[in-house]
């Protein structure tokens, strides 16, 4: 199944703002992130939070076809 990727702040500077990925059914957000880190080992030290379809989720959240997955460095608004 296909998922869309969004990156923000320092992550956006390394990965670009958007991406796309084909993943196996039942893939979790955490598994997807680890796959990205395998390809880009410099991401390993990054503290990251995940949002799927604009809602925060835990790493164990299972993806669905068409989901938008956003990767956030620690927020610093205000």
């Amino acid at each position, binding site marked *: 199944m296909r998922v869309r990727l969004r990156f923000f702040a320092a992550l*956006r500077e390394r990965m670009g703002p958007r991406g796309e990925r084909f993943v196996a059914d039942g893939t979790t957000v955490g598994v997807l992130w680890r796959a990205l880190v395998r390809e880009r080992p410099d991401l390993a030290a990054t503290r990251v939070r995940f949002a799927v379809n604009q809602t925060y989720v835990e790493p164990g959240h299972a993806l669905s076809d068409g989901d938008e997955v956003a990767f956030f460095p620690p927020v610093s*608004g205000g």
Partner: protein
Amino acid sequence: MTRRCRVTRGRLAVPALIRAVLDPAAGAVVTFLGTTRNTNAGRRVTRLEYEAFVPMAEAEMERLAKAAARRWPIRRVAMAHRIGRVPVGEASVGIAVSAGHRREAFEACHWLIDRLKEIVPIWKREHFRGGQVWIGPQQGGPPPRRRAARAVRRPR
């Protein structure tokens, strides 16, 4: 509870923020503005630059406003966060809360800015004399961007 949460470009419209929470049943309006300070961690700051995941940031601010209204008997909430460049002395964030009495307006407003900083998907990059750096523990390790890392160490 009425609420109005926005991510905007350009100067924050503070009078509009306050007007949005005026209410004939309110005796108190407390407003918080976060402004760009000219120093941070010993660096001479020239401006901040904010980036947001806009629709989710607005939705998270709405959720916070609703959560505040469950905790305190407040009347209205207005929240605005500016993105893009914010020069020294200008406001990046504004939160206005109206309530029947002042204690709940103060407490809810303080709680909202604390929570906004923890969870709303907005990021700031600090531009200072000699460099720039993303704020927040973006990395477990040392700062990744050579230019920023070098600049932090440059003597003034």
